[in-house]
Structure formats: C-alpha cells, structure tokens
C-alpha cells in the first residue's frame, strides 16, 4: 500500500511518515504542492493525504488535477482551516474525507484504513471471529468458547466494529461516530463505560483477554500472548 503525503510543515510531514510507515504502509512525503501534484498524477498511490495550504499548488488544486486526469485515488484532506465552506469545497472538489488540525494520530490512522477499505469489495461475511470469540452476523449471536453471550444491540454493534477492524486501534471519537452516530468530539466518558461493560461480558470470564485499551489512543481487539 503506497501512500503519498503532501504536507509543507516539516515536523508534521516527518511524523506522519514515520507513524504511517510503522503502521505498515509504504509512505512517500513531499513538502511542495507542485511536486506533490506530479507524483499524485502518476497514479501509483493507493491514497493521497493532502494539506490544504501548500506552496505551489494547494490541496484543492491538486485534487482537481487528479480528478481531472480521471484518477479516483481516495483523498484525505488535512486542514487547519475549519470554516464550513472549506469542508464543503474540499469534498465537492473530490476529497473523500478531511481532518481538522489539531487531530489525533490514531484518528488519522483509522480514517486512512477506512478509506483504503472503501474501494475493496469485501466478501459478504456471515460471521466474524477472533480466537474463540465468534460473532454470527445473521442470527445476531455471540459466542465465546462455545458459551453464548447476551449483548444489547449497541454492544453487538460495538463488538462487530472491533472484530471487523481487529488489530486496529480505534479512537473513541471513531467508535462514537460509527456505533452511535455521534459525529462530534465529546469529552464524555460514555465510550469508556460501554467498553467496560462489553469487557465484562466478553473478557472477564475468560483467561485470555481480547479487548485492550491503548492508553491515550483508543481500543483494540486482538489476541495477545498471555
């Protein structure tokens, strides 16, 4: 997976490259818009991460050029400008998502993965599984180690999300947005409580824990060596 970052702030660009590379992506970073546009037009990339304010060509001009060339590479905008018109303009010009600075890296990572997954048509799954945890999507049932677990509708949706994105750190804001359709940053600790309750049902009675808290970042569902 090759990603292109066009970001003129050296520090931001550097850390984005490092973070995404460590998350397993092949990342290229350029600081100026003109070079960025040339690279983007090559069509070699699975995703473009564009800062809006750039020297040379700005992010909007790049996305226009990319769409004009008939490429449908997903585009994620990073912007320090938070005016509503900016968002509308960015999305109208063909951006697929945007993040307003300051943003959390975990949020960026989750969005990048969402965008990359969007294109690929995943086979219609009937069940999701991790270790001895099994989620039956058709009968809406959850079992662990052959033992039936009763979940509320939202708990089921939360576990489904964690299972679908197992191994990914999911920030609280993303969970709130996907499971409860709450699309704003809130400092409420509802998600913590919801995760705790899910853990109580899914993990507490079993020796190997699957739901993990990544401090300051979010939650991840994965099998870890005891």
């Amino acid at each position, binding site marked *: 997976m090759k990603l292109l970052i066009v970001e003129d702030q050296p520090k931001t660009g550097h850390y984005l490259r490092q973070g995404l590379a460590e998350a397993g992506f092949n990342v290229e970073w350029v600081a100026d818009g003109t070079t960025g546009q040339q690279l983007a037009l090559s069509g070699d990339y699975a995703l473009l991460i564009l800062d809006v304010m750039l020297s040379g060509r700005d992010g909007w001009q790049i996305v226009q050029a990319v769409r004009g060339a008939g490429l449908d590479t997903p585009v994620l905008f990073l912007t320090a400008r938070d005016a509503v018109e900016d968002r509308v303009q960015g999305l109208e010009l063909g951006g697929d998502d945007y993040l307003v600075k300051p943003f959390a890296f975990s949020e960026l990572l989750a969005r990048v993965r969402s965008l990359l997954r969007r294109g690929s048509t995943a086979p219609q799954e009937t069940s999701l599984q991790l270790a001895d945890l099994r989620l039956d999507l058709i009968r809406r049932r959850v079992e662990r180690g052959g033992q039936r677990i009763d979940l509320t509708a939202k708990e089921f949706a939360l576990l489904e999300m964690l299972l679908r994105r197992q191994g990914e750190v999911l920030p609280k804001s993303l969970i709130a947005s996907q499971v409860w359709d709450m699309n704003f940053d809130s400092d409420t600790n509802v998600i913590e409580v919801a995760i705790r309750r899910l853990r109580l049902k899914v993990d507490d009675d079993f020796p190997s824990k699957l739901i993990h808290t990544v401090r*300051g970042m979010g939650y991840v569902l994965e099998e870890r060596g005891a």
Partner: protein
Amino acid sequence: MRRLSLSSRLALLFAACTAVVSLFAGLLFSGASEAHFIELDQQLLEGKLIGLRQALHDVRSSDSEIRPDEELSRQADLSLRISGSDGKRWYDSAADLPDKLAQQPGLSTITHAGTDYRVLNAPLFPEKPDSPQLTLLLDITHHQHFLQRMQRLIWLTVGLSALATALLGAWAARSGLRPLRRMSNVAKGVSAQSLNARLPEESMPPELAQLAHQFNAMLGRLDDSFQRLSAFSADIAHELRTPLSNLLTHTQVTLTRPRPIEDYREALHSNLEELQWMAQLVNDMLYLAKADHGLLMPKREPLQLGHEVDVLLEFFAPLAEDARVTMSREGDAGIEGDRGMLRRALSNLLDNALRFTPADGEIRVRISEHTAGLRLNIENTGDGIDPALLQRLFDRFYRADPARQESSSEHAGLGLAITQSIVRAHGGQIRCESNRGWTRFVIELPKKN
C-alpha cells in the same frame, strides 16, 4: 465642495427667514401706504370735481369763458383740462400738461416729463351723454418720493436684520450645539482602554437625551463585549497554563537523568493526556469562535426531536446505569435543524445533567409544542444551583463547582457555552432554572426560521 458646518447652516437659515419675513412686512407696508395715498388723492380730486362742476356750470362750448382759477388757485399742484365730447382740447390750466391723456372715466396714474400725476376723468355734466370732459391732474411726485424712500428703507432693514440674525443665529447655534461638542469630546476619548466614559444624560437637552442614551448604551455594550473578550483571552491563557506547565515539568524531570524505558513510556502517556485535553480545548474554542463570527450555519433538515433524544438517551444509557440514574423522555415535535449540531448541544446538556444528578436520581426530557415553536426541557434532580449563578452557567470556562477548577483532566467548561451557541444558531434561546430540588435547562426553538 466643503460641507457647511451645522452652525453656519443654522445661521444662514435664520438670516434667510428674517429676510423673507421683513421683506414681506415691508412690501405689505409699502403697498398699504400706496393704497392709502391713492385713496386720499381720489377723495381730494372728487372734492375738487364737485367745486369745478359748480364753477363751470355755464360752460357749453370751446368758446365759453372758462374761469376755474378760483378753485384751482387753492391747490397749486392741481391742473385741469377741459375737452369736448369729441376729445378736442378746450382748455388747459397749465402749459406743460401731456398732450395725450387717457379718456376712460375714473382714476389713473401717469408719468409725464419726470412728473407723476394722479388723473381723474369725469364728465362736466354727468346727466348729459355728450357732456364735455373734465380731466383733473394732481402732481403726486412728493408721494412717490416718499414711497421710494420707504422702499430703500425696507431693503436696508431686510439686509441689516438678515445680517444681524445671521450673527446672532451663529452665536445661538454654537451655544445650542454645545452638547454635541461635548458628545464628540467623549467619543474622541473612547478607546479600548477607556470604554467606561459616559455622557451625562440628565444635563442633555431633551432632543439629545435620547441620542446620549443610545450612545451610552452602545458604549456599555462595547464595554461588556470587550470585557468578555479580554476575560476570554485571559481564561484561555489560564486554562492552557496548567497543562503546559505539567508538560514542561514532566518532560524536563523525565529528561534530567537516564531512566528505564517504562518511565519514558509513562511520561509520554501522561503528556499525551495533557495534549489531548489541550487539543480538545482548542477545537472547542475554534467552534465557539466560529459561532461568534456567525459562521455556524445549521443545515435545515426535518428532524423528530423525540427520536434524536432517544438516540442520545441510548448513547448515555451505560453512564446512567452506572450512576444509577433513570432517564426518560416524553413528548415529541418536528423541527428543521442540523442533526449533528443539535445532538452535540443536547449531549452536552445530558452529560452535564448526569454529572450533577446524585445516585438514584432522575433525568427527564420533556418536549412540548406550541404555536410559535417548541420547548425542550432537560431536568434533573439534585441540589440545585444558586440562582445568582444561573446567568453565568453559559459563560465560557465557567464551572459551577470551583473545586474542579484546576483539575486539567476534567471538562474545560465550554460545553454549555457551545450548547448555547448551537441553540442561538438555530434561532432559539436557552436558560436554566433551579427550584425545589430540580435543575432544569429550557430550550425554546422556533419551528422554522
């Protein structure tokens, strides 16, 4: 072109008014005196006519002996012409009379060789159709001189009185407009540092009192906004100071000597928490700044408030169960608004209510519809809030509980301010009431705006 000052304008207007009035009076007076002279002349001439008709009663033709001198000698400025019914001149009492004279009977005024005459034509024998004509000419030059003098006097009066009123008017206008200058002096002195200057309303004339009042009110509003703004900046600095100093101290202490890797991890985690808190604060402040600039533009989508509240109650259900608080909703209403923004506003209120409701307490959401709009109440049981503090609840960074002030992991105190901004962006109002063990947030929204 340079615009005239108010004083000059008023002075000129005064002068013009005086000139018009005195001119009118002068013309009226001169017209009246002229009419009076004409009347006097007519009376005189008609009196003479009677005497002349008697003296000339035997005149029949141009050959008759004509001796009207007795009548005429008593009046030096009077002349007489007698002519036949065919217009032929029979007799002139003086040599320099005009050749041609009007023939129509009655009084007229003519000028001949620099002399003004009042002329009266009348038949000598009124009962006879072919009577000889008498024409009496009265020299009225001295009248005319008097009238001309009077006209000059009128013009002089007009000019002088206009000049005098212009000067007096200028002085009056200047002193009359003194309150305006005072106002301008106060305005001159106003700056961000001195928004507390006020005009003395009670010493202003009634016409300006209203203006002075509005002016003071404007200064008051500016002062208030400015105070809030300065307080807001000071608050931001204050809010950021605690996490920043934590970050600085922690990072420096961590770096002072080599440590096990776990300690570094711990330090970074701790820093991350502070940083996330600061990022949230900055994002919230940007949101509020956007609201302040009128850039919060809610979408207008048809929503069922009851459904939105239910979704939020479901979202908060785990928290409520943990806190052993029951939540309920009654009533429903349709509204056009922005789903995301309204959810955010209501979620802040519910979050707030959950935080202040004691265990085994209750939170009730009630929606009611009335003609003008709808009302949404979110009420919770609890100790209630000091009525004096109710107004300040929506202030930025305001926390009802001062004990929370310095704990940086807690809420920044912007939630209610954001809620208020969202409600206002929807054209609504929000207030808080607290009594008899219930705290109630009341949102009133128009159905359409």
